[in-house]
């Protein structure tokens, strides 16, 4: 029995944990931008962490349930409402057949993850239900959900308990000045020492061009390049390189002007130099940044990156333990 989409918000897509393994063909892994929130929402409703749910940006959808289900909303502070009555986020919520799930205004963060018991059971493509509109893969016919869509649900697994919630200390949202830890590398040597300093010293702001493909930042000083004769086939701009692969989280700065951090739906390659990569532990946070949020990039080494990753893993382990 499906869920009927009454309104869809600004951009609500079906996402799971993505389709790794095809990046060499320009098909990104995709999946939830904030993976910890997606996993937590699934755990709250008794789903496997890999189940598909909805990722809503800024504005939630209105969904009519045609059967009883458990629902949880994690990530952004986008409070769910049942038949108009508000309920807490990060908490398992019982929905009765015929009820309408809607959302209050966004209070914090950018992306809310809506998990439903049984998981959304649309057709997987290349092993994932994640929506990748550029390649028309996953989702509903390869696109975001629209009013009038019916979303099929899978069979509920473990029985979940209504009212169970993720403890506040295990929830993760960026600070008011977000700090994104970055490992310098890749083509870091292409910019001058002064620009290497100013990049980390300056406070940047999230630009309006901020989506699943990448987040653009503005407001810091432009970067200066170490002079060189451009290599054959690299292109004439000093920020150009011979077209290469782009790591997820890599920071490219076309013409030294505005940094772009590539995210889950990254373009897999291109001809811009990159000065480093946001560490894996901080990728989730980027998905929760609203436009105009001040951001500071923080230089870290590999050891710190791996420590942060371990810490993020133990956070997830605590959530699993609490909800098991």
């Amino acid at each position: 029995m499906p869920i009927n989409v009454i309104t869809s918000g600004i951009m609500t897509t079906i996402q799971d944990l993505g389709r790794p393994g095809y990046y060499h063909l320009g098909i990104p892994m995709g999946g939830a931008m904030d993976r910890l929130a997606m996993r937590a929402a699934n755990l709250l409703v008794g789903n496997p962490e890999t189940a598909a749910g909805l990722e809503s940006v800024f504005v939630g959808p209105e969904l009519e349930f045609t059967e009883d289900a458990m629902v949880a909303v994690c990530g952004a502070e986008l409070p769910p409402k049942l038949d108009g009555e508000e309920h807490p986020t990060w908490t398992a919520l019982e929905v009765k057949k015929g009820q309408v799930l809607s959302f209050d205004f966004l209070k914090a963060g950018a992306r809310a993850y809506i998990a439903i018991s049984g998981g959304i059971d649309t057709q997987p493509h290349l092993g994932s239900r994640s929506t990748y509109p550029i390649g028309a893969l996953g989702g509903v016919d390869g696109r975001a959900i629209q009013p009038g869509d019916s979303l099929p649900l899978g069979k509920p697994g473990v029985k979940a308990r209504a009212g169970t919630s993720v403890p506040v200390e295990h929830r993760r949202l960026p600070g008011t000045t977000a700090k994104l830890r970055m490992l310098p590398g890749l083509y870091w040597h292409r910019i001058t020492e002064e620009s290497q300093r100013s990049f980390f010293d300056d406070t940047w702001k999230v630009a309006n061009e901020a989506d699943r493909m990448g987040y653009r930042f503005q407001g810091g000083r432009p970067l200066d390049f170490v002079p060189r004769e451009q290599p054959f086939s690299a292109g004439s701009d000093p920020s150009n390189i011979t077209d290469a692969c782009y790591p997820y989280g890599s920071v490219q700065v076309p013409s030294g002007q505005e940094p772009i951090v590539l995210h889950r739906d990254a373009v897999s390659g291109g001809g811009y130099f990159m000065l480093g990569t946001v560490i894996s532990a901080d990728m989730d946070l980027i998905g929760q940044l609203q436009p105009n949020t001040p951001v500071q990039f923080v230089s870290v080494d590999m050891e710190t990156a791996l420590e942060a990753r371990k810490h993020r893993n133990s956070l997830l382990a605590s959530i699993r333990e609490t909800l098991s």
Partner: protein
Amino acid sequence: MSRYTFGGDEHIFVEVDEEMSLEAFFTSLAMTNAVRDAKIDGVTEICPANASFQIKFDPDKIHPQKMMDMLKEMEQTADKQEAKLNTRIVEVPVYYQDPWTHETMMRFRDRHQDPEATDLEYAARVNGFDSVEKFIEAHHSAPWFVSMVGFVSGLPFLYQMVDRSRQIQVPKYVRPRTDTPKQTIGYGGSFTALYSVRGAGGYQMFGITPMTIFDPKQETPYLRDFMVFFKPGDIVKWRPIDREEYDQITADVEAGRFEPRMKDVEFSLDDFNADMDGTNAKLMEALYAD
């Protein structure tokens, strides 16, 4: 030799050479093949590119430094291998100066370095050709090597198989377009790109192919096994077609009747470097053997 650098805690990026060459590409391909064959636990993505490559791995399974040490070891073995490839040559029909890319380029003249000229007129001029026709002929007379697949879904980058002095080089648009027709033949730096899907792009637009190269529904007969047509190492011959043939092939593709002309071939980089025109002539012979 190659330059190894970490892309955060999950990637290693290896720059074989700053500049493009078939030698650098073959090293990248040999290395990525070696990594694939080694079946290293924790490796999740293996991405060859033009003159570099990238490995994505799970640092919970393999320490980044250990991963890098293994890659460096593999380079020593890969270095000794002969640059030979069993591959295929594919004929791709191209309608140069088509109305669709023309309409698109006219919408974005303000983003072009020479708004008074078409992309082809500009490309011909900066490469020293006195006519667009001669430039088009130079574009399709020699075969091209797929040296990278990426950017978006199944988009191939191709490198011209001629001596560097004859290679076409064209700057990209000053500011990228927000639109490019699906299956546009684009050009930037020293690469042809075949846009697999409609979308943003900064390459100069030369023409369009009626041949589908990405089909997520996998209904196209030659894409039933996999939705992406090209892979690194493929060799391509562009064949100029007119509007009439474009319409015919488009109808054939839609009806599931079109099959691209292609043949299996062996390619040796040493043979190619010793005699480029001769090697290319043999490739053409193989392609049109029946």
